[in-house]
């Protein structure tokens, strides 16, 4: 059997909007193998983002179980504390969002290396140049984010997500702000990362072309997986 990197069982997320309960993720059981490329599709409000945040340890589930790598994130109705989640997020995950969240005062190179500011000094480090080269940003390293195109900004965000060599890359609508040409570029990059570096990728998208790059497509509706 292949190594499972994420396993969830009956995982749920419930929001309260006033007195109204919104079950954004409804008893989702899902296993993701190491090195897999999975994409979540589904209509707006179907719970894609909510589920991604749960699997990526960004948000606490309300019910169910969740194991990521060797860590038991949620068990017996209790989830790990924020303090324990921090190093797990740092060491296992890279996150990319529709918005790029680059720090406007830092150069491209500094943005890429930003995660290292929050890491112990003795850890192994990659050079920003190597990653930038790979993502076609080599000539942009000294620029500020405002001097870049949208596609370039997203590539910087990807480089930043990759700098700590995550096992899992989570991407929520990474091409949502980009035109189709740039979207294809990003899709190509994600696909390469999965094939060449065996990074596990979970991608949320509305874009069928992008979703098709994944090895497995999971369709959500009303917080549940549709078979």
């Amino acid at each position, binding site marked *: 059997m292949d190594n499972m990197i994420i396993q969830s069982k009956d995982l749920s997320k419930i929001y309260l909007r006033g007195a109204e309960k919104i079950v954004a993720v409804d008893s989702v059981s899902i296993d993701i193998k190491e090195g897999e490329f999975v994409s979540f599709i589904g209509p707006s409000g179907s719970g894609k983002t909510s589920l991604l945040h749960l699997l990526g340890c960004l948000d606490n589930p309300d019910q169910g179980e969740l194991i990521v790598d060797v860590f038991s994130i949620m068990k017996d109705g209790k989830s790990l504390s*924020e303090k324990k989640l921090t190093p797990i*997020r*740092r060491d296992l995950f890279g996150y990319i969002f529709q918005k790029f*969240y680059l720090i406007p005062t830092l150069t491209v190179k500094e943005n890429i*290396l930003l995660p*290292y*500011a929050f890491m112990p000094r003795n850890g192994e480090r990659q050079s920003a140049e190597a990653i930038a080269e790979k993502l076609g940003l080599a000539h942009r390293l000294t620029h500020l984010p405002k001097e870049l195109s949208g596609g370039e900004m997203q590539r910087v965000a990807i480089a930043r997500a990759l700098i700590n060599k995550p096992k899992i890359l989570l991407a929520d609508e990474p091409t949502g702000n980009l035109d189709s040409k740039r979207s294809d570029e990003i899709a190509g990059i994600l696909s390469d990362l999965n094939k060449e570096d065996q990074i596990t990728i979970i991608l949320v998208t509305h874009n069928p072309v992008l979703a098709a790059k994944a090895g497995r497509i999971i369709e959500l509706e009303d917080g549940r997986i549709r078979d």
Partner: protein
Amino acid sequence: MPGISGIAYKNLRRKRLRSVLTVFGIALSTWVLVSLFGFNKGYEASLNKDIDNLGFQVLLTAKGCPYEAATLMLQGGKGLRYMPEGIVDSLKTNPEVDELTPMLMQTVFDVNKGEEGGVVGYLGIDPQTYPKMKTYLKFNQGNWFTQNDAMEAVMGYEAAELEQREVGDMILIPEKEIEVKIVGVLKRSGTQDDGTIFLPYKTVQQIFGLPGQLTSVGIKVNKSVDITAYEEELYKIPDVQVVSMAQVKNTISNLVSTARVMVMSIAIIAILIAMVGVINTILMSVLERYQEIGIMKSMGATTAHIFRLIWFETIMLCFAGGVIGSAMSAVLGKVTDSVIRYILPYAPTGSLVRIDLALVVRAIGIIVAIGLFSGIYPALRAARIRPIEAIRSADGEF
């Protein structure tokens, strides 16, 4: 790659005007603080120096006799009382006494002074003992009297200046119609002596017909002596009053402490304003960066990292403000001096505000400490941001 402090620094440059204004506010309160410290130090020292310059710690005057030239002038030169010269010899036997100097003050009305005439005062001194007590008196021209009863005068700097006198000139003592020769003009000393005309006291006794009379005796007490106890002794001598310079100093100090409380309150208000400014600036900058901070946390920034990031920003603002404020207070020392002089009821002649490195270091220390304190709340707010909230909050924005 910038560390946390580098990121903090770059962030301050993002909203440059806001940072500059905050730094300016901190600089102003540092200025107030440094000046206040410097004042506490300088005022005390200058006052002490003024009083030491008197040369004697105790002044003995005939009962009811004004002991200050200024008071005497105000009273129109009336009200002088005398005590017998013999008192000097009896005081000399006291073991507490280091030095003694007899003095005889006199005034005359000079019809030629000003438009309506005015009072002119003469201080009769003993050329043997007086200069020894007032070692700071230096001559511009000439020297002290040639003899104990010479018909000679020495003029204080301003007195000479006012009447355009030089050594060798003769001055006429009005009413008495007697001329004395100027043998010395003093340098400016910044004390009352600048406005005084000195004569040998024996000469004054002679001219004014007061043989064997004095108005006051200055007493310099031995170093080891308890002045208060000795003053008690002196009170027992009949028909004299004891003017203690320590008391004078106390009176002035009390007067000034009221002013000091006022200055202190101004300083506290200035610091509070600066503090509110810092909190406001940092808090705004935290709230504006809600998402950025959330993203940093998703990359592994811990609560401590974010706390440090925000705290660094606060420290940098405060440190910059502290340094600029200290520099300001050093450069503007003279201005501060005259402002304080204006506020105070009595100001000694020396510099009122003394600023040195230790003081500056202390003021910057306090400002940075205040900054650290002000930074706690914004830093805690920032450190508590959860990544999910930050990311979610952005959802609706596009």
